[in-house]
């Protein structure tokens, strides 16, 4: 029992007295989670504005004279990189990971609170360096978020002077921050679970975040070395990625490097990155669906194994981003097969979400609406991915709007819908107050229907052959005038969705000050984070004694039980049925 005593010891926790110690230089995982989330959402709003500017240009080319071709490419680049890395990764792992892991596994804090704090401040530094790109001569990087060399560091690409440098330096700093956070999440899950919290009793949210953190620790180093090598190519004149090149009519001094090497490094990071974003979202949405359908997540063990298998397989599919890159085309056979195989565990997850709803008792509250929205967009985005993964079908579709439509559905909209759902779901626990239901519903419907109006037509434009990353289409024989009309329609839908996000921000901020006091467990959830003695939980989370866990996180509607949920820390009684975990 010695370990329990040690884990229960409150003394090692750092208890600050001052405001600055509590909320700025805080080592409390909940405060750090909020710091991470607010920073990520703030920079995400910048990326959202950039997307609106892009849509203005695409919908009404030539109308907005301040959007020049170089600006457009800078919007594309910064929008993509911010959304993928600085918003989604940071918010799902740094935000939700930090908040949920200790509360869900019954720990007092992360195992390395100081490193956790450092992780946030280094992340903030990476964001500031990234933002500095907007103010350097030449503006931010404009090479597309994939930063492909040689283009990224040559004349003819906006931001090749300083923007690319701030981008690469910022990425390197971000990876340092992520490594500190990721080590913390993994160690906490492995070492700091409370008594009775076996791995197979953890909520799916923790599983998703846990596996994603391991993946991040393995995948981000590839991006790190790629960023450092490209930085050397740019600053020190090395030729890691640079062959002999004539740029703007002038011979350059580069020779012998390989642009495709960069693509392999980038996508060795970049593909797992898709799942680093997706797996936490998968985990969280499993919990939202289960809680609000009052039913255990169907096939829990299969769901956990699917997360692990997807995480492992995702390291063997990266070159499906490179079918037309000029790599040896024989790779296509292997990567198409591995890519389509990964669809099987992913499909199992979808089936189990649907089977969780089946014969449930579905409460369509706002978090559940977002979870339902996720199911629809993820089914759509997952299926359109099979086109692009199926190597020869990718030939006509690669680098068209089909790709834009696909990845926005699958890794843009889908995780964002889960994030909205998760914020609505845990907001009462985090703030102790409840948001406005009507505003939440309006926010959901505009967002959900709006994004489908944006991205469905893009798939069709892509099948037609409309290329992406084009500042303007101009007159092109095979593109009918109706396609320009589609672009206008997409832009109008995008602007409506853009404005509707104001409802969310208003609701969150207003409710924080004026919202009604929330019940400690408003949804009747069984998992541990809803069983804290205080709402919001205080530093140390659990009061004098850590909770003891007796059951899995999904005892909903157990036959014979008085309530339709049994919290994880309730000892077994007569009504209990034996379940597999």
């Amino acid at each position, binding site marked *: 029992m010695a370990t329990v005593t040690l884990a229960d010891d409150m003394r090692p926790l750092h208890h600050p007295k001052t405001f600055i110690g509590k909320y700025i230089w805080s080592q409390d995982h909940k405060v750090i989670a909020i710091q991470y989330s607010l920073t990520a959402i703030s920079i995400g709003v910048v990326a959202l504005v950039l997307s609106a500017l892009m849509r203005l240009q695409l919908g009404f080319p030539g109308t907005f004279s301040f959007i020049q*071709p170089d600006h457009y490419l800078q919007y594309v680049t910064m929008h993509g990189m911010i959304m993928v890395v600085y918003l989604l990764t940071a918010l799902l792992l740094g935000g939700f990971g930090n908040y949920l892991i200790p509360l869900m596994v019954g720990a007092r804090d992360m195992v390395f609170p100081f490193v956790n704090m450092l992780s946030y401040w280094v992340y903030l530094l990476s964001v500031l360096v990234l933002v500095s790109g907007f103010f350097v001569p030449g503006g931010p990087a404009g090479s*597309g978020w994939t930063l*492909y060399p*040689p*283009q990224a560091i*040559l004349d*003819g690409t906006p931001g090749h002077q300083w923007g690319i440098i701030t981008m690469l330096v910022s990425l390197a700093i971000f990876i340092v921050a992520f490594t500190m956070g990721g080590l913390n999440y993994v160690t906490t899950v492995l070492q700091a679970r409370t008594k009775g919290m076996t791995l197979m009793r953890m909520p799916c949210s923790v599983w998703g975040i846990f596996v994603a953190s391991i993946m991040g620790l393995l995948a981000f180093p590839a991006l790190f070395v790629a960023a450092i090598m490209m930085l050397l190519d740019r600053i020190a004149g090395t030729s890691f990625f640079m062959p*002999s*090149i*004539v740029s*703007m009519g002038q*011979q350059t001094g580069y*020779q012998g490097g390989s*642009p*495709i090497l960069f693509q392999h490094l980038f996508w060795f990071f970049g593909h797992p990155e898709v799942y680093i974003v997706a797996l936490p979202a998968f985990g969280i949405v499993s919990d939202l669906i289960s809680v609000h*359908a009052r039913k255990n997540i*169907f096939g829990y*063990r299969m769901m956990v194994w699917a997360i692990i298998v997807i995480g492992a397989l995702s390291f063997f599919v990266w070159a499906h981003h490179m079918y*037309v890159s000029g790599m040896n*085309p024989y790779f296509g056979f292997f990567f*198409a*097969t591995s890519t389509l*195989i990964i669809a*099987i565990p992913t*499909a*199992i997850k*979808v089936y*189990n979400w*649907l089977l969780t709803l*089946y014969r449930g*008792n*579905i409460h*369509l509250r706002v978090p559940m609406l977002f979870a*339902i929205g996720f199911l*629809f967009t993820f*089914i*759509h985005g997952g*299926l359109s991915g*099979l*086109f692009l993964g*199926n*190597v*020869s*079908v990718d*030939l*006509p579709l*690669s*680098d068209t709007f089909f790709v834009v439509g696909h990845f926005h559905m699958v890794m843009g909209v889908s995780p964002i819908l889960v994030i909205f759902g998760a914020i609505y779901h845990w907001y009462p626990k985090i703030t102790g107050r409840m948001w406005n239901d009507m505003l939440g519903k309006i926010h959901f419907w505009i967002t*959900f229907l709006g994004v489908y109006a944006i991205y469905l*037509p893009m798939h*069709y434009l892509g099948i*037609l052959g409309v290329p992406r*990353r*084009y500042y303007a289409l101009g007159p092109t024989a*095979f593109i009918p005038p*109706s396609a320009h009309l589609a672009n206008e329609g997409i832009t109008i839908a995008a602007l409506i969705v853009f404005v509707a996000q104001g409802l969310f921000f208003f609701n969150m901020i207003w409710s924080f000050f004026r919202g009604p006091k929330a019940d400690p467990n408003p949804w009747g959830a069984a998992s541990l984070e809803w069983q804290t003695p205080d709402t919001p939980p205080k530093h140390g989370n659990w009061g004098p004694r850590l909770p003891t866990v007796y059951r899995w996180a999904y005892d*909903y*509607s157990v036959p014979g039980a008085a309530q339709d949920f049994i919290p994880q820390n309730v000892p077994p009684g007569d009504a209990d*049925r034996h379940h*597999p975990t």
Partner: protein
Amino acid sequence: MAAAVAIALLVLGSIAFHLLSPWWRTPLASNWGSIDSALSITLWICAVAFVALNLFLAYALFRYRYRDGHRAHYEPENTRLEKRLTFWTAIGIAGMLAPGLLAWNRFVNVPKDASIVEAIGQQWQWSYRFPGPDGVLGTSDVRNITPDNPFGLNPQDPYGRDDRLIEGSELHLPLNKPVKMLLRSKDVLHDFYVPEFRARMDMVPGIITYFWLTPTRPGTYEVLCAELCGVGHYMMRGTVIVEPEPAFRAWLAKQPTYAQLAAASAPAGTELAQAKTTTIPTAADQPRGKR
């Protein structure tokens, strides 16, 4: 209730959108019908999954919506059902992967009788090179590129002297003849993309990439660069004219050879073969032609 109706309507709306959409693939102009079939098979299998899964979702949302006194069914898992679903998913996956891989197998195996065309990308224009009567392209290297030698051909290489060079952005291809497109870039990544041909590939500086096709429909098609190549990316256009072989031959015969161009630009009295060059032979200088 509203959610169930919305999901069902979105499914119907998506089907209607698909049927009414004026935006669909361009009419095929090459031999790559197998790519189109693989796409159609993938579409059908995915469409069935999309409709079935979402209608099930709508049904569950409607049928099991919260009502007073109603309680959810308790069923932690059903291994038999999960195994059965896994099996049928694998069948569906195999059903679309097989035609995809078969088409790819044809794509990677270039026919022996394919003629060679080189397409060269640079910011932000295209140029092309055809081999002369010897059927072999002369060697080239980016380091040979000068204003007088924009293609970077090796002046010492006799195979290159009869190569026909096209500096404009208009390419002609013979109808119904297999063509292997050798792709080269002087500066950054580009991508030779003609939507009607379906097949395409990136151009990568430092290496030579390729793909092959047989143009099957006479006409004029637009070439777009489909790999971001800098600020002028969207203006990097060209045209391909597919025409019967005699017309193509007549057009090709009018294009200048490297020898002619070099003679025109070289100072009087300098023989091409004796031209001084500082080029260091590299692996990239190995003769290549029909591979």
